[in-house]
């Protein structure tokens, strides 16, 4: 449509959607050309008719879309032929990037799309096309499903790498959108039909939905930008798509009515009865936007993001220390977790808000699919909405209230679901009863339309020291679920050994036994080498890890101790060296040189030798950082080294914090500082450098992140009683929001000082906008903090 309008006089950079108002006849003529060429569906001229793109138009979204639908309907009304052609409300990308890459929130995106859907209610169907961000498609699809009852077709745009610009891959797209209730999915734009064959071949392995291809007229010529395919070639290439089971065909960039005519002629002659039926997709799979995990072999669910029984984790939740949670995620992923369980329930915190924040922050840094773990349906729904991809929900059980509240959510958002084989009477003793509960849940889920393969049964692990025969019951139940119900199974492994010595040995043995019985998804702590070791060994022995490739990669360099009374082990030697003289000097040197592991080890040794945490901080950590800071100021040491030193100090602090959390002492803090990158600014690396340095001087940083509303800064400063607020802005265009944040802080009459920093700031400008301090770099920010808090 855009190309056609430009050929008819739309200026470059003009808004095609305005033509619905200024030249409706012309738009209708273009529809008529396509209808005459044999099109069954015409897309309204509304690709960019959203409130963001039309903000520079004198026309409003609703009038533009209503006009566009009326024009398309009028064209269809005049079309010749037996079948009434359909009008599709066309919805393209908003033109703004969603978080975390950009600044658009899910709710804002949803709001834009909702306005479009409501305005286009008279269309026959909705198409969401040319998308590259899966979360944006999700916002659009939910807006369509929740505000209209029309069929919805979703197509995304893939590069040669079979990923979209934001990295979404084909399996993730297919399973997510099918789960969310799209009526047909496929590919548009991107490339020519031949280049899109691999995308469709992959897509049909991950969905049972009807497939759509709306290809370009080949690839553009590098010299002239003209597309390379003729209408005849295009139609011939599209026939290959029909061979793959594609049912809806169209043309995108570079095509015109001649291409549709050729396509129509090809399809009229095409013998669809000869197309082999598409293989039915029945595997269990989950994904993030960029990574799919198919449960076609055992996969590890990491259990560490959970406050139960973990003082340090509880403290992190109370202090909103999201970085700690992200560290827990990365550590587990590095150790071999395929999926991460996320549980952030703790009395006294807003679990819904915390869960949504964690889901978003985790998805910004790991591509591992998540398992949303909460007892509250409201928390689960909020997380399901925010999640980018197809997650697992943990969990439902056989109780009526549980099934009634959780199953509809899982159906609506298309997630996988852990089904616990317990009910209002507790955990049944016998295998028989557990199977009965599983069957009950499955039956209810199927009635609601939840696909069978999305249900994962938890036969429940009991503590063997309390009920010794329980382990055998659980294992038998796993085997029977696999055999009789044909469903995937999950088990929390770690609790089996509660109350016994050498728990790792019991856990890893139980894990192997359970895997042999057919356990697909063990929930465990992947940071324990014995657990991942047993898991990987099982995968070799059971034939999943072909040629033991993965196993060898992990253990090729492992030296196995065969005797405990042999010569001194290297670890023991290192410990002996650490225990030597001048520990503070060694720690200081390790920090100055940026040596993380050594810093941690010397700190441990100092604690062991009886030095108090505060003495270590004041006597060694801070002077070492000061020394590096002074060298930085005079240009003898540079930014990366300054940060390396801070990271080494961080390793030392981590040891001290763990010790203090264990002894239930008050956490170490030299004072609270609120940090934020101001509203409108998404550049946060500078702020994060300042944060690392401040934290390692012992300050508690309340990090509000980037693109932060002025009001949120005021609220945080008030809530935490921070004496210092640090604001960062990189862009000249966001300096005004720095100014308004400061003025709001002043209006609130808070007894806090404000320091500002960022590439475009000057000391003069800082003064002009009312800041108390200008910090030219991270070291200067620490100096300001010292002035405020002393020391």
């Amino acid at each position: 449509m855009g190309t056609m309008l430009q050929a008819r006089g739309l200026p470059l950079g003009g808004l095609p959607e305005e033509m619905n108002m200024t030249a409706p006849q012309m738009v209708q003529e273009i529809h008529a050309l396509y209808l005459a060429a044999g099109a069954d569906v015409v897309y309204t001229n509304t690709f960019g008719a959203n409130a963001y793109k039309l903000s520079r138009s004198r026309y409003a979204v609703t009038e533009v879309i209503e006009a566009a639908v009326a024009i398309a309907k009028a064209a269809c009304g005049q079309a010749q032929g037996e079948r009434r052609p359909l009008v599709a409300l066309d919805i393209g990308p908003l033109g703004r990037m969603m978080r975390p890459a950009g600044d658009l929130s899910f709710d804002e995106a949803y709001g834009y799309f909702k306005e479009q859907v409501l305005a286009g209610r008279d269309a026959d169907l909705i198409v969401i096309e040319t998308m590259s961000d899966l979360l944006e498609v999700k916002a659009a699809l939910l807006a369509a499903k929740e505000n209209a009852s029309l069929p919805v077709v979703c197509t995304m745009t893939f590069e040669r790498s079979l990923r979209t610009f934001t990295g979404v891959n084909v399996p993730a797209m297919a399973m997510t959108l099918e789960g969310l209730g799209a009526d047909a999915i496929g590919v548009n734009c991107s490339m020519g039909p031949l280049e899109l064959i691999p995308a469709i071949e992959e897509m049909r392995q991950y969905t049972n939905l009807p497939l759509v291809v709306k290809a370009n007229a080949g690839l553009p010529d590098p010299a002239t930008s003209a597309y390379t395919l003729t209408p005849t070639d295009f139609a011939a290439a599209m026939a290959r798509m029909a061979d793959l089971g594609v049912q809806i065909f169209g043309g995108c960039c570079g095509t015109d009515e001649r291409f549709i005519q050729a396509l129509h002629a090809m399809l009229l002659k095409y013998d669809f009865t000869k197309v082999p039926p598409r293989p039915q997709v029945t595997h269990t799979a989950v994904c993030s936007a960029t990574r799919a995990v198919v449960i076609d072999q055992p996969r590890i669910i990491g259990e560490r993001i959970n406050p139960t029984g973990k003082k340090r984790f509880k403290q992190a939740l109370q202090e909103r220390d999201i970085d700690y949670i992200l560290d827990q995620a990365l550590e587990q992923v590095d150790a071999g977790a395929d999926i991460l369980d996320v549980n952030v329930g703790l009395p006294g915190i807003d679990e819904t808000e915390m869960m949504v924040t964690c889901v978003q922050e985790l998805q910004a840094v790991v591509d591992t699919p998540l398992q949303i773990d909460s007892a509250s349906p409201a928390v689960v729904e909020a997380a399901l909405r925010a999640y980018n991809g197809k997650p697992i929900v943990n969990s439902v059980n056989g109780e009526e209230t549980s099934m009634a509240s959780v199953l509809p959510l899982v159906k609506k958002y298309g997630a996988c679901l852990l089904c616990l084989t317990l009910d209002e009477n507790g955990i049944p003793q016998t295998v028989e009863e557990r199977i009965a509960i599983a069957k009950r849940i499955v039956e209810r889920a199927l009635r609601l339309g939840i696909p069978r393969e999305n249900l994962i049964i938890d036969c429940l692990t009991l503590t063997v020291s309390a009920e010794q025969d329980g382990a055998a019951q659980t294992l038998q139940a796993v085997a029977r679920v696999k055999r009789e119900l044909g469903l995937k199974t999950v088990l929390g492994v770690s609790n089996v050994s509660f109350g016994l010595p050498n728990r790792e040995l019991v856990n890893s043995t139980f894990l192997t036994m359970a895997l042999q019985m057919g356990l697909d998804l063990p929930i465990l702590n992947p940071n324990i080498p014995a657990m991942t070791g047993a898991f990987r060994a099982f995968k070799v022995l059971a034939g999943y890890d072909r040629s033991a490739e993965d196993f060898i990669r992990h253990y090729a360099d492992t030296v196995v101790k065969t005797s405990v009374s042999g010569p001194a082990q290297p670890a023991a030697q290192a410990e002996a060296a650490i225990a030597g003289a001048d520990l503070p000097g060694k720690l200081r040197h390790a920090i100055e040189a940026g040596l993380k592991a050594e810093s941690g080890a010397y700190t441990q040794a100092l604690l062991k030798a009886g030095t108090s945490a505060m003495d270590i901080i004041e006597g060694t950590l801070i002077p070492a950082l000061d020394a590096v800071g002074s060298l930085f100021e005079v240009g003898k040491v540079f930014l990366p080294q300054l940060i390396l030193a801070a990271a080494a100090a961080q390793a030392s602090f981590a040891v001290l914090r763990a010790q203090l959390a264990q002894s239930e002492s008050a956490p170490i803090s030299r004072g609270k500082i609120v940090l934020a990158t101001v509203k409108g600014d998404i550049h946060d690396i500078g702020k994060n450098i300042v944060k690392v340095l401040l934290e390692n001087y012992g300050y508690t940083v309340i990090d509000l992140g980037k693109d932060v509303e002025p009001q949120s800064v005021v609220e945080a400063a008030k809530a935490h009683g921070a004496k210092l607020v640090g604001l960062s802005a990189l862009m000249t265009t966001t300096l005004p929001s720095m100014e308004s944040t400061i003025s709001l802080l002043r209006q609130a009459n808070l007894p806090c000082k404000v320091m500002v920093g960022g590439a475009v700031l000057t000391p003069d400008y800082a003064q002009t906008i009312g800041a108390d301090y200008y910090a030219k770099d991270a070291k200067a920010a620490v100096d300001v903090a010292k002035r405020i808090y002393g020391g």
Partner: protein
Amino acid sequence: MRQTVELNGLQYAEAIRYLGYGDAMPGEDVLALLRAGEQALLAAATPQFAYRVFSAQAVQGGIALVGTQLILRGNSILEHLAGCDQAALLCATLGAGVDALTRTAQVRDMAQAVVLDALGSAAVEQVCARAEEHMRASFPNRFFTYRFGLGYGDLPLAQAGEFFQLLDASRALGVAVTAGNSFVPRKTVACVIGMSEREIQSMRKGCATCNLRKTCGYRARGDRCGY
């Protein structure tokens, strides 16, 4: 014109300069970060550029691009394009993968993140240089100005939205602009290159048009960043 670019290596010297080293050489620890960062960045990046050449006309308040509704505003762009009858709009990007990589690095290892950030800036300049090579080869008898970035001098960054629309940058490159005029992906450059039949006596790139001249650490030391 849109093209994907294969980068075979990154220019450490540039990255080291961005890290503030000036003439100093980083030690082995930071060199290791540079090597690891280069490898990760090359794996994560999907470098591309797109450009489009327009006839340029000086008008009241700026330069009009003929056939479009865009007027590039300000005195800086008027000066920059003095003597040019055409202007190329160029956008180069490393793609969203580098943003994701840097986000993760900021959690894992801030020093690595800072080095990645500097390497990313060097890399996107390399993509720009490749685009320029392409342009020079495509227009063999023309002379070119240096790359004048949106936001340089008084050329408003706020024109990024219209600029990207003319290049169809969201569809062609996956590039967009935020409400605060930041580019997404972060390592994206948008600039204007003047084209002329005659050799261009234009001022050199340097401190005069640089918006950071007041706070620049190099200038404070009586030094130059080299740009």
